[in-house]
C-alpha cells in the first residue's frame, strides 16, 4: 500500500464525519474501534517501513496549487515514524481510559479530527500542508479544553489558541520568505521541505529565518519564557485533553526544530546553541522548582512535563547523533510517560474530585495496583535505568557533554530535582497512614483502567531494556541529516560543531 500515509491521515477524519451518524450510546465503542484500526495501520506502516533506508519513504505528491508551489506532499522517515505511532497509540489509550460522561459523542468526533491533524503534521513534507495541519490542530484542542475543562476553561482555551496562533503566523511569514528566496534562485515556486533543504542561505538570512521559525516552535514546545499558557491549559483541560496535549501536541514544536530549523539553517542553529541551551536549562531547573512548590498533583505533572521538554531541546541542539537521536527518543518516552501520568492523576480525580496532595496519603494501602503503576511511571519520568526515560535522557546528556560539560551538568540536575519533587509527590500521596476517611473506601483500578495502562507499562519497560528496534531507524535518519547539515554549513564554526559519526562518514565516502 503506497498511499498508506494518506489513509493514516484521512481515515480518522472520515470516521469522524461518519461518527455524526452513530448513536450517542455507541459513540465510545465506535471511537475506540476507529482508533484501534488507526493504530494497527500505523503499526503496519512500521512493518512495511524499510529500516535500512534513511530517507523519506511512502512519498506521495499531488500538485494542489502549482502556480503557488503548494503540493500535497507526504513522506515519513525514521524521525517521524515513531512519533506517528506514539500519536495513534496515545489517542487509542486516551480514548479507552476516558472517563467523560457528558457529550461523549462530541468528544469522540473531536478526538478523531484531532488525530487527523496530529498525524498530518508529522507526515507533511510541504510547508503549507504542515502549517495547515499545525493550525488546524488548535481548533479541536480549543474545544476540548473549553467544553470539558475546569472553571477557567474559556480563558485557558483562548490563551492556548491565541498564543500558538500568533507564533505560527510569524512562522508563516518565515515560510513565505523561504519560498521567495527559493523562487529567486531557481525560478520555481516550491514549498516542499526537501527542496528547501537544498537551499544554502547566507548567515544573516538564516538568523532571521531561524528566529521566525523559533517563535512558532518555541511557543508550542513551550520554551521558557513562552510557557505560561501551558499550566493554564493543563490545569483546566480534562484528563484526555492533557494526555493528548502533553503526549503529542507539544512534540510538534520539537519535531519542527528537527524537521525545519536544523537542516534548513545549520549555521544559525550552531550560533544559537548557547542561547537556546541557556533558555532550556532555565526551563529545566526553574520549572522543576516550580513543580516542587505545587500543591496540586496535576500541576506537578504539568510542570515536570515542561521541565522534561527542556531536556529534549538541549538534545536537539547538541548537533550530534547521540543528542538528536536521544531527543527524538525522549520525545517518545516523554509522550508515553507524561501521558500515562496525566491519566493516573485523572483516575484519582474521578474518584475524589480533587487533585490536592494534602487530601491524599496512604493510597498505597488502599489502591495497590494504582500505586505500582504510578510508581513505575514516576521512575520512568525521573529517568531510572531500565525504564524508557533513562535511555533518552542519558543519550541527550551524553550528546550535549561534547558541546559544553558545564551546561550538561546543570541540565543533569533535572534528574535530581525531578527525583526530589516526584518522590515527594509519591510520599505525600501514597505512603504513611490513611488520614482522610474518604480515602479508605477508594476502589482500586477498574479493569478498563488497568487495560489501558498496562500496555504503557509494558512499553516503558520494553524500550527501557531494549530500545534498539526504535533507536536504530531514528539514528539512521538523524545521521543522514547530520551528514547533510555538515555538507551544507557554510561557516567553519558550524562545520566543526556538527559532528558526523565516524561510521557514517566512511559509508559516505564509499558512495
Amino acid at each position: 500500500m503506497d498511499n498508506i500515509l494518506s489513509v493514516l491521515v484521512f481515515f480518522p477524519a472520515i470516521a469522524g464525519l461518519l461518527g455524526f451518524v452513530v448513536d450517542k450510546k455507541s459513540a465510545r465503542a465506535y471511537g475506540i474501534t476507529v482508533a484501534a484500526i488507526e493504530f494497527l495501520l500505523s503499526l503496519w506502516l512500521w512493518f512495511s517501513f524499510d529500516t535500512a533506508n534513511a530517507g523519506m519513504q511512502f512519498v506521495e505528491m499531488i500538485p494542489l496549487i502549482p502556480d503557488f508551489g503548494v503540493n500535497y506532499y507526504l513522506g515519513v522517515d525514521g524521525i517521524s515514524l515513531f512519533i506517528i505511532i506514539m500519536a495513534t497509540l496515545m489517542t487509542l489509550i486516551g480514548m479507552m481510559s476516558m472517563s467523560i460522561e457528558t457529550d461523549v459523542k462530541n468528544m469522540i468526533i473531536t478526538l478523531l479530527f484531532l488525530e487527523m491533524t496530529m498525524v498530518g503534521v508529522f507526515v507533511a513534507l510541504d510547508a503549507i500542508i504542515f502549517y495547515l495541519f499545525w493550525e488546524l490542530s488548535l481548533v479541536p484542542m480549543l474545544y476540548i479544553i473549553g467544553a470539558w475543562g475546569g472553571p477557567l476553561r474559556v480563558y485557558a482555551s483562548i490563551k492556548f489558541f491565541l498564543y500558538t496562533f500568533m507564533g505560527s503566523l510569524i512562522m508563516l511569514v518565515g515560510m513565505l520568505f523561504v519560498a521567495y528566496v527559493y523562487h529567486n534562485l531557481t525560478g520555481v515556486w516550491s514549498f516542499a521541505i526537501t527542496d528547501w533543504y537544498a537551499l544554502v542561505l547566507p548567515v544573516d538570512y538564516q538568523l532571521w529565518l531561524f528566529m521566525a521559525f523559533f517563535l512558532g516552535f518555541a511557543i508550542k514546545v513551550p520554551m521558557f519564557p513562552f510557557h505560561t499558557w501551558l499550566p493554564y491549559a493543563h490545569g483546566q483541560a480534562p484528563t484526555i485533553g492533557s494526555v493528548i496535549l502533553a503526549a503529542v501536541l507539544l512534540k510538534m514544536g520539537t519535531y519542527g526544530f528537527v524537521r525545519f530549523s536544523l537542516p534548513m539553517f545549520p549555521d544559525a542553529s550552531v550560533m544559537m546553541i548557547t542561547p537556546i541551551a541557556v533558555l532550556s536549562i532555565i526551563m529545566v531547573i526553574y520549572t522543576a522548582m516550580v513543580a516542587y512548590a505545587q500543591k496540586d498533583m496535576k500541576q506537578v505533572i504539568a510542570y515536570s512535563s515542561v521541565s522534561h521538554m527542556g531536556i529534549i531541546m538541549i538534545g536537539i541542539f547538541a548537533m550530534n547523533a547521540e543528542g538528536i537521536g536521544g531527543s527524538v527518543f525522549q520525545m517518545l518516552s516523554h509522550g508515553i510517560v507524561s501521558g500515562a501520568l496525566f491519566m493516573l492523576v485523572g483516575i484519582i480525580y474521578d474518584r475524589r474530585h480533587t487533585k490536592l496532595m494534602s487530601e491524599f496519603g496512604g493510597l498505597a494501602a488502599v489502591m495497590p495496583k494504582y500505586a505500582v503503576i504510578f510508581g513505575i511511571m514516576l521512575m520512568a519520568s525521573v529517568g531510572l535505568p531500565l525504564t524508557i526515560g533513562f535511555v533518552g535522557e542519558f543519550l541527550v546528556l551524553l550528546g550535549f557533554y561534547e558541546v559544553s560539560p558545564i551546561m550538561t551538568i546543570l541540565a543533569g540536575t533535572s534528574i535530581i530535582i525531578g527525583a526530589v519533587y516526584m518522590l515527594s509527590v509519591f510520599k505525600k500521596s501514597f505512603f504513611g497512614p490513611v488520614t482522610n476517611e474518604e480515602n479508605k473506601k477508594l476502589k482500586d483500578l477498574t479493569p478498563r483502567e488497568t487495560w489501558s495502562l498496562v500496555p504503557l507499562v509494558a512499553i516503558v519497560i520494553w524500550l527501557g531494556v531494549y530500545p534498539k528496534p526504535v533507536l536504530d531507524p531514528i539514528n539512521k535518519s538523524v545521521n543522514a541529516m547530520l551528514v547533510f547539515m555538515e555538507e551544507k554549513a557554510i561557516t567553519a564554526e558550524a562545520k566543526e560543531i556538527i559532528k558526523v559519526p565516524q561510521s557514517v562518514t566512511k559509508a559516505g565516502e564509499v558512495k
Partner: protein
Amino acid sequence: MLEPIKVSLESLNLITLAPMLIAIAGGLVILVLDLINEKLDKSLYVMLTILILIVDFGATIGLNVNERGFFDVMLIDGISIISQLLIIVASILFTPLALTSKRFHEYSYPEFFALFLFMVAGFQFMVASDNLILIFVGLETASLSLYTLIALHNRSNSYEAAVKYFTMGALAAGFFAMGSAVVYALTGSIELYQVAQVLSTRLGEPGIMAAIFGSSVLLMVTLAFKLSLFPFHTWAPDVYEGASAPLAGYMSIVPKIASFVVAIRIFGMYLDLGIEWVRVMILILAVITMTVANLMALVQEDVKRMLAYSSISHAGFIMAAMALDTTEGTTSIFFYYGLFMFTNLGAFAMLWISRHKVRRFNARFDHPYEKFAGLIQIMPMGAVIMALFMLSLAGVPPFSVFWGKIYVMQAAVNAGYVWLAIVMGLNSAIAAYYYLKLIVYMFLKDPVKDVDVVYYNLSRPLMAVIGLAAVATIAAIFYAQPLVSYLYYMISASGY
C-alpha cells in the same frame, strides 16, 4: 458652421456596453412586469434577477481583452472583466437571500430588484472605464440605488443608516469631483491614459507635485470613504447595523471591489509615474486601517458590528497589497475578494436567518453575542457552519480566506515588504480573538433563553446558499489554482 459629426457604428464598439445594458434592460423589464400585473410574488423577481445577471455574466465573459469602445470612454481590459465577473457573481449569490421564510417589507416591492440591477450596472460602469466622468457617473448611479435599497428595510435605524451613508457618500462624491477637476486643470484631460502621458512629460516642472498632491489627496479621500479606510471608516458599522444582513454583506464586497478597481487605475498610474509618496500614503492608511479596525472589533457587543469592523480590517489588509504595485499584488486583491466573498456571504446569511422582528435578547442590538450562546446544543449543524465561517475569516487553514491571506502576504514578501507581511500576521492574530469570541459563545457557553427560534428565517433557498458558501469555503484549496491562474493571466494581460 459646425462640421457634422460622422461616427461609424463599428468604431463605437457597442458590444463593450452590452453587459451594463443587459442589467439596465432587465431592471426595466421588472418594472414593466409590475405595471402589467401587480400581484406577482417576490420569488419570480428573485429568479428573474438571477437570470438577468447570468446573461450579464455571459456577455461579460465573452468580451475581448484590451478593447476600447464608445468614443474611447469604455475600457475593457483584464481588470475590468474580472472585476465585473466578481461583481456579477457576488450579486447572484446575494440575491436569493431575499427568499426568507418570513416576509420582509422591502422584497415585496419589485422596485427593489430593479434598483438592485441598476446598482449592478452602475458598478459595472465604474470598473469598465478610465474616464473620470464615467467613473463618477457609475459611482453615483450605484451609490444612489444602494442608499435606497438600505432605506427600504423599513426600520428607524435603516433610515438612519441610509441617510448617514448618503451624506457621507455625497461628501465623498464632492471630493471626487474636485479631485477630477484638479486633474483636468493639470493635464487638460480626464482620460487616465492621456493624463498619464501628459504627466510623464511634465513631472519635472516646478509646483506640479503640489498639484498632484492636491488631486490625489482629494481622490484618496473619496476612495477611502468608499473603501471605509481609516479615518473615514466611522460610517461603516452604523450603516452595516442598520442595513439588512444581506445588504450589509453585499456592501462589504461589491462596492469595495469596484472602488479598488478605481483606486488601482488612479493610484497605480501615479505609482507607475514613480511618485513614491503615494505608496507611503497608501501603506500608512492600510496599516492603520487594519490595526484600528481590529482593535475596535475587539470591544463590539454585536456580531454584525463586529463583522463590519472585520470587513474594514480586511479592506485595509487588501489595500496594503495595492501599494505593492506588482502583478502579484494586484492579483491578490481580486483573489482575496473572490475567496472572501463566499465566507462573508455565509457569515452574513447566518446572521440573516437569525434575524427577528423584535429584539429578543438586547434592547440595543439585533445580534448580540448572547443570542448565539450555546448554539451547539440548539442547532449543532448551524453552530458548526458558523464556526467554519469564523475560522475562515480568522485565516485558519485550509479555509478559503487563508489562501487569500497567504497570497497577499507572499506578494508583500516578494515585493520586499517583509515588515508588512509581519504586520499582517500580527493583525491576523489579533483578529482571531474576536472571531473566537463568537465560537466560544456558540460552543462553550450555555443558552441564555430557551431559543427554538434562533433560526427564524431559514428556508430551503437560504439553506442552499449557506451550503454553497460552506462548500466553497472548505474546498477553496481545489479551485484556488484555476482561479489564481485566470486572474493572474487577465491582470498581466492588461499590463498591471
